[in-house]
């Protein structure tokens, strides 16, 4: 059952999940004992978005050493097998295959190493030795125990993997002791996430002063959003504040004094920013406003219509004013001195012919 050919092959991911459509014709191994491919290709390419939380192993492609075997069985295999099927020893870990092929692709073609039945005898002991020595040399290439990083490692102190240091924010053992960059990255994202969670929890409590309901608990999902006023810090839900500002002036209410003003403090705000989260500091508010404006700036203005139309908001429009060829509208403000000696910005100059 344990044919050398099968042993070479990497376990089929689909098979592992119980559903490979290729069945017997699959080029990957359908054998539970085959080594699973546990290497993160994103990390090898240079950047894995999951960082220390990645469920695959983070092994650098440049070094040809095997990651710490994930099970005792695998470990014993590579030791027991050397004489008989010596050729497969060095390749017992699929990680090594990829690493080696990536590192010195010129001397061995990857396909030959991976799928060929025979491997040159000479270079094997060498690489095996190399692999073992490297393992003890650079601990930063070892990935940390993912069980410990996720919360608890069942093997405790007997675990063959390094256990990461405890992150002060998420209290999980996910800080790699020998990768300062990754540590920092994790702590940064972790802190950010914690802050976000905190803000979200805080936001849950906030009531809209118009409908008197908790904004994030409103029955209609689309209404579970805050409408932030640019000039003051009173919370409303987006539907209430838009409703109020959109009231028809026919109702006898003054547009500038009443409708555009904050219902609570009556401070005039010229725009409302939708946000799913409420802020607790000036910086956070600025961040929300900036990211909202940035998003709008990437959308083409319907009124400007690539230069075919005129936008009533002119230079203060939040949307993108660009022509079809991608060039942005040039903003030219005409400054004129008025009779009091002040400078005024002129919107448009028209000449009138008089008879």
């Amino acid at each position, binding site marked *: 059952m344990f044919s050398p050919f099968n042993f070479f092959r990497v376990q089929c991911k689909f098979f592992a999940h119980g559903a490979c459509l290729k069945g017997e014709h699959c080029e990957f191994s359908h054998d539970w004992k085959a080594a699973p491919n546990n290497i993160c290709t994103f990390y090898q390419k240079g950047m894995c978005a999951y960082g220390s939380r990645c469920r695959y192993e983070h092994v650098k492609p440049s070094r040809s050493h095997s990651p710490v075997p994930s099970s005792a069985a695998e470990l014993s295999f590579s030791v027991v097998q050397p004489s008989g099927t010596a050729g497969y020893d060095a390749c017992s870990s699929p990680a090594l295959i990829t690493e080696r092929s990536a590192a010195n692709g010129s001397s061995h073609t990857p396909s030959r190493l991976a799928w060929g039945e025979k491997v040159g005898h000479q270079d094997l002991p060498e690489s095996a030795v190399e692999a073992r020595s490297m393992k003890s040399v650079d601990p930063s290439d070892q990935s940390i125990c993912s069980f410990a990083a996720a919360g608890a490692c069942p093997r405790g102190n007997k675990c063959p993997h390094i256990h990461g240091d405890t992150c002060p924010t998420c209290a999980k053992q996910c800080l790699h002791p020998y990768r300062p960059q990754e540590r920092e990255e994790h702590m940064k994202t972790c802190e950010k996430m914690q802050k976000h969670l905190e803000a979200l929890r805080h936001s849950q409590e906030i009531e809209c*002063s118009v*409908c008197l309901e908790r904004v994030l608990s409103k029955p209609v999902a689309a209404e579970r959003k805050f409408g932030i006023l640019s000039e003051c810090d009173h919370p409303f839900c987006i539907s209430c504040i838009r*409703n109020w500002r959109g*009231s028809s002036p026919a*109702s006898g*209410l*003054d547009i500038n004094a009443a409708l555009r003003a904050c*219902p609570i403090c*009556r401070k005039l705000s010229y725009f409302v920013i939708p946000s799913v989260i409420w802020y607790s500091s000036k910086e956070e508010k600025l961040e929300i406003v900036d990211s909202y404006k940035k998003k709008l700036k990437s959308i083409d203005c319907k009124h400007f219509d690539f230069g075919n139309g005129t936008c009533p908001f002119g230079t203060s429009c939040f949307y993108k004013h660009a022509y079809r060829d991608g060039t942005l509208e040039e903003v030219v403000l005409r400054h004129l001195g008025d009779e009091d000696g002040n400078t005024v910005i002129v919107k448009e100059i028209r000449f009138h012919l008089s008879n």
Partner: protein
Amino acid sequence: MVDFARVQKELQECNRDFEVSGIRVVPKSEANLAHLLGTIPGPLGTPYEGGTFKIDINLTDGYPFEPPKMKFVTKVWHPNISSQSGAICLDILKDQWSPALTLKTALLSIQALLSAPEPDDPQDAVVAQQYLREHHTFLGTARYWTEAFAMTSSLDVEEKVKKLVEMGFPETLVRSALDSVGGDENLALEKLCSG
């Protein structure tokens, strides 16, 4: 459409601290929350002290984005309140309305208006004239009106009902007539006679 969820919340909130504010809002009928009756105590240190003033509240479809329509049911002698119709001249009930205001805060504002009349922006010119020229007479009239119309105890009401029923009017009609004129017997009689 009136936001009845909000009205319901407002009523609960308002009646919870009745002990402190003395302001009460109740629906005229359980079925319709758009028609309510508010009561405010006359502010201390004014000719309205000791009186309980009833205010008729009608919520328009736009509430809370439009102001509620409020008018005095109880007759009041005040420069900014019509002595004839009970209409109130108050900016927050008109162009200065804000959806953050509630029935309770609006009633509080009316209470404040009672203690601080604005004779220069009058609703009732006769009262305003008197307020400015014969302040003493104004105080006397206001006091008299308060005693006559705003201090009807429940016992008095029962007495009036009895009286009017004896005149031959059905009791339910008598009660609603008395309610709509703020408890004044003569006005109620007039109303009953007119139809």
